[in-house]
């Protein structure tokens, strides 16, 4: 979807490049490795209930896997098992085909980017020094570190001249989070772990940071494990979503679309919300649709860009009234029209598709089309 098709899996050979001076992430030689969790479990000593039970999933190189679930579902624990901040008690984790358990924990962590909610930036170090942390630990030359810091600051849209010497306390929350991402990317890790990276950011800036991060990911194409409790964020950020339930059990691991169309069970259906038909609309952008021909009579004042999601377009229809919006491209040229009927058609078509998972039978999916139609009906009512 976002990056899967363009990702390259260099496997274990990716690690060998770490010491070579010639690579550079911005030149499109970014590394990414496949991550495989195989029967992973975690039981804390003295506790009856396991924190993670038999968790198996594979994240193809260059894809974003979102771990999502209610609190207590062990999503952060699962993430911290990967870089061995928490020790595993069963199963195995393979990064680029090689077990993380065989490796020296420090060496492993220096090859895994790590971003956390409160950023964890070192307050006593400047932005430049923060970004230079892992390259410094790896013993890169001063010159190479300097060039890398400059390159990364440009990548995250901070002026190196102006910002490199600032301390984290002098940055806005959004800037701090960007620096956190740059720091994690510094040594071009084949895998990044991100624990609710945008959780502490206000909603407006969060959406912007998410968009920025997605376009950044389109460039660097890292394998990413992204933890959040917010299903909307999961749908937006994830190539695949792993929904965990209480006690660290994997409820479903699938693409956002599949999860929304064919929730595996009641728990998943409830977790993604009764409005999952609406959520699904956010997965499709207008330029992916066969739009209606522009109709002079109906051509309304409401215009939406072709890059917008169907969900946003529906919202515009609701706000503006009427049954349709005009879709325009970046140059404000009319591309066609989106009508409520078209949205209804889209939802019904998707709901009719069989589940792609192994056990395709699902009761929740059959009601999905009805939900979709009800949503569109309600929108029609409101428009009148």
């Amino acid at each position, binding site marked *: 979807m976002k990056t899967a098709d363009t990702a390259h899996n260099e496997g274990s050979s990716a690690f060998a490049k770490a010491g070579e001076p010639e690579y550079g992430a911005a030149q499109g030689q970014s590394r990414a490795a496949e991550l495989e969790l195989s029967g992973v479990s975690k039981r804390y000593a003295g506790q009856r209930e396991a924190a993670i039970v038999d968790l198996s999933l594979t994240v193809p190189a260059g894809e974003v896997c979102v771990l999502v679930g209610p609190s207590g579902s062990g999503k952060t624990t699962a993430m911290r098992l990967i870089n061995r901040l928490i020790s595993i008690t069963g199963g195995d984790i393979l990064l680029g085909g090689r077990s993380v358990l065989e490796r020296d924990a420090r060496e492993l962590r220096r090859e895994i980017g790590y971003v956390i909610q409160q*950023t964890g930036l070192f307050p006593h170090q400047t932005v430049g020094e923060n970004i230079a942390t892992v390259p410094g630990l790896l013993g890169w030359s001063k010159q190479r570190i300097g060039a890398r810091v400059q390159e990364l600051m440009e990548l995250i849209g901070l002026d190196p001249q102006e910002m490199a010497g*600032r301390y984290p306390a002098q940055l806005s929350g959004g800037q701090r989070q960007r620096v956190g991402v740059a720091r994690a990317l510094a040594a071009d890790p084949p895998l990044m772990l991100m624990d609710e990276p945008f959780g502490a950011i206000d909603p407006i800036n969060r959406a912007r940071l998410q968009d920025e991060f997605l376009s950044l990911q389109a460039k660097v194409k890292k394998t990413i494990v992204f933890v959040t409790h917010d299903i909307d964020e999961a749908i937006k950020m994830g190539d695949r979503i792993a929904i965990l339930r209480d006690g660290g059990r994997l409820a479903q691991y699938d693409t956002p679309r599949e999860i929304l169309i064919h929730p595996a069970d009641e728990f998943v259906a409830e977790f993604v919300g009764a409005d999952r038909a609406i959520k699904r609309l956010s997965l499709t952008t207008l330029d992916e649709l066969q739009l209606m021909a522009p109709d002079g009579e109906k051509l309304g004042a409401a215009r939406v860009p072709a890059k917008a999601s169907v969900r946003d377009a529906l919202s515009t229809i609701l706000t503006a009234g009427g049954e349709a919006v005009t879709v325009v491209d970046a140059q404000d040229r009319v591309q066609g029209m989106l009508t409520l009927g078209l949205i209804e058609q889209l939802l019904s078509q998707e709901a009719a598709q069989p589940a792609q998972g192994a056990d395709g039978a699902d009761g929740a999916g059959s009601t999905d089309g009805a939900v979709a139609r009800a949503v569109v009906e309600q929108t029609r009512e409101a428009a009148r």
Partner: protein
Amino acid sequence: MTGALTPAIAAAGPVIPNYGSQSSKCVVHNHFFCTDWVSHNWGSILWPALRQHVLLTAIAVAIGFAISLALALAAHRYRVIERPTVLITTFLYTIPALALFELLVAPVGANIYSAEIALVSYTLLILFRNILTGLREVPEEVLDAAEGMGMTRRQALLRVELPLALPAIVAGLRIAVVTIIALATIVYTIYDKGLGVPIHAALGEGPFKTELIAAGGLTVLLALGADALLVLAQRALTPWARAKGG
């Protein structure tokens, strides 16, 4: 140091210690403060006493800091060490200084060792508490990031924890230095060094005010100066602590 009274001066005024042959009118009449006495006795009394005082303080704080740092690092890693350390250092801190000096004379002798042992024991509680607090106040997410990026324990300690604990550590040092500068004025009771010597001499020698004011004033100035130096050092070492707001 107590010079003999010459008959001429004794006859001219009240009983004033004669520090040398050049006693001025100011000294003879025991005015509030005689600068000429100070300048005359600077090289022989005040400057040596001041230097000794600085040395007594510096040695005590340096040794106290080394011990406290080791104890705090141990307590930071192994929590069980904290309680007994606090207990012992608090106990040491509460022993009256005069009593402690005298107690040490029998086993150690009336020398610099007993003086320093006593002074060091008064720094421990302050420094241990402050260093440990500083280390504990390092935000958890910062430590998590340090570990998650692959720092060893030692690297995290040296590159992250200690630098971040520096403001609390310097705050402890400031209290300790000022405390020891004040306490060192009673070292004279067992060891004839420091600014306590002229202060004691002035107290014992009748109503002459200048020596008391000069030696006492030097003690206060030394404390203020040392404190100011530490503040400047902290500012230089922790530019980040003042960097707030964009």
